[in-house]
């Protein structure tokens, strides 16, 4: 099944063409084009002007996949969670295309997209972990479309906390990636930061606002911080933030689960992946991450693949997806709906 997928949930304008679980082309508009020579970090100038970019990106994705609308079997679009006005642009474009070419229109949950971007055919139930700028969520994947949330953040998302720490340490924004690089040069045990929710007996939530506050207060006590101080602070913060994930995850590890699906922008972080592997080895659980970095951040490839997996696994009929009116944005969409 060939799907044209659109995601405009927040910053990125993204369009992809997927063929079953294969991502044929995956186009994202970002300033990356301008700043690729700078090694990956880009400013987000005018990043939210989806309207002006959506047609261009649709065309690029089609061109890149060497494919025409005639060959497309369905349109998939992100309906939430995200920023309402941004979601609206993608949904309108998807409807316009669906009507014009008489194609079924499949609504997709953005977080489910991140979750299934590392999907492998393995035994259910699996664990699912999505860590990004806007999401911090651990769930039990009983089947595709059947999820039980085990823990979610009660304040800040992990990716957001890393970006904020980076900016506080003077590393600019977005700084999560730089923080990781710089943390490698630091001593994670130099500063003691409080492990969030240490006293939770039932580990059913994450929290990063307390850790963020602790860093602000610690940083304000260091007079004229040196390079090494910044390295050490970055390392200590990152390490504590990840230990929190590990602690909560370990509480939910059990013998019946053999796989963990991991997605979202923070899945780029090498230290976190190695911490996860170390923990999961104890429980004989295999870690699955998307095969390319591009599927970690916001993209539409994951939306196309998710739409296909849902249709296939839940034995849904494409004929039932012609009720375009019913496809509407839902900025606070929860997983499993």
């Amino acid at each position, binding site marked *: 099944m060939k799907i044209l997928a659109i995601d405009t949930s927040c910053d990125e304008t993204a369009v992809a063409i997927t063929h079953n679980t294969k991502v044929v082309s995956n186009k994202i508009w970002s300033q990356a084009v*301008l*700043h690729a020579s700078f090694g990956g970090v880009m400013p987000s100038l005018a990043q939210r002007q989806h309207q002006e970019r959506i047609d261009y990106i649709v065309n690029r994705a089609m061109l890149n996949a060497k494919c025409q609308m005639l060959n497309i079997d369905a349109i998939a679009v992100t309906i939430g969670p995200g*920023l309402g006005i941004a979601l609206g642009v993608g949904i309108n474009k998807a409807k316009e295309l669906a009507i014009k070419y008489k194609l079924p229109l499949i609504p997709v949950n953005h977080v489910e997209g991140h979750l299934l971007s590392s999907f492998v055919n393995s035994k259910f139930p699996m664990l699912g972990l999505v860590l990004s700028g806007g999401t911090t969520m651990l769930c039990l994947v009983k089947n595709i479309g059947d999820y039980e949330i085990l823990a979610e953040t009660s304040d800040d998302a992990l990716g957001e906390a890393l970006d904020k720490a980076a900016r506080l340490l003077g590393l*600019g924004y977005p700084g999560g990636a730089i923080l990781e690089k710089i943390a490698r040069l630091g001593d994670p045990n130099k500063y003691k930061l409080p492990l969030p929710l240490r006293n939770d007996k039932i580990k059913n939530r994450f929290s990063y606002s307390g850790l963020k506050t602790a860093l602000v207060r610690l940083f304000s006590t260091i007079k004229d911080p040196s390079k090494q101080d910044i390295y050490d602070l970055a390392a200590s913060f990152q390490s504590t933030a990840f230990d929190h994930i590990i602690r909560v995850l370990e509480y939910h590890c059990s013998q019946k689960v053999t796989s963990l699906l991991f997605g979202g922008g923070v899945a780029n972080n090498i230290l976190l992946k190695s911490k996860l592997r170390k923990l999961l080895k104890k429980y004989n659980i295999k870690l699955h991450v998307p095969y390319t970095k591009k599927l970690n951040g916001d993209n539409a490839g994951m939306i196309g693949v998710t739409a296909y997996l849902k249709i296939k696994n839940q034995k849904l009929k494409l004929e039932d997806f012609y009720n375009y009116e019913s496809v509407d944005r839902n900025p606070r969409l929860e997983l499993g709906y």
Partner: protein
Amino acid sequence: MKKISKFDNKEIIKVLEAGGLVVFPCETVYGVAVDSSNCMVVEKLNKYKQRPLGKPYAIMCSGQKMAEEYVSLNKTAFNLYKRFLPGPVTVVSKGKGKVPKGIESETGTLGVRIPDYPDLLKLIKEFGRPIVATSANASYQRRPYKISDILENISEKQKKLIDLMIDAGELPHNEPSTVIDTTLDDETVILRQGEIKLKGKNEVLSRSDENTQNTAKELWQKYQDFAGKRAIIFCLEGEMGVGKTVFVKGLARAMGIRQQITSPTYDLLSCFQSTVDGQQLAHIDTWRMIDPNSELDDLNIKKLITDRSIIAIEWADKAIEEIRKYLSDAIIIWVKIRYGKNLSDRLISWGNL
């Protein structure tokens, strides 16, 4: 192509001044450099790197003084220079338009690097102006740690573009430089703005998150009578981690909203509905916005106000100009939260604009 094994500055400068392309070692990888004052050489560099027009390059300077002739540094950039340069960090700032076309980005920003490599610093100093530098591999090829890494991966045509190579043997395998863009930081804007003065100022000391939430509840009760008649905007100002979201959690609870309130930093705007009277709470965060004043407008704050919503804006001080426009249409309560003496102490003050 000529090969030398030491920094012979006289010879290198001669080549650069003649519009030549020089391959050189530094603390990261082998780079290629051209003169930053020659309009013609950017094209040569593009040809060598085989990359399209429009992609910017970074310049290498001998120190901050030289850099400041080419870019304007804001506070973030100053701090970065102080802490990390010379070193493997490229700091992007607003350019002054003093380099030939094609070096700065299309938006007028320019990356500056001060290499942590004494021979190279000496060369740039003697040269008296920056060099335009980039890694010596063609785009998308492997990182060049030795001369053969370069030569084995480029075409004969590309080889002919190189005028001089400085071969320092195999370099330690360090990562390429990290790029930090400082142009998004608007601290300078805030600094200019000065402190926001409030009328009828009140202040309480909060000793815990719970206290802060209760203060929010009391403030809500004070203004609740206006709900449904006018829009009410709670503007939150305060340092990172001080508890702005905590305040909104208290406000939401007082309004009868049962959903979990999380930070709206990423999504920019989250809306909630009260289960008691259907009142809408719009929770906005400007922290991540590039131009908070115009982006608030993009989020359609006008409609939220005509709908008489309850609006909570974190980092409201960044968008004060836009917020001031609604002084006559909405009730605006400005809330400042500051760190207190003890770890969990917060000073909360509020008043009207």
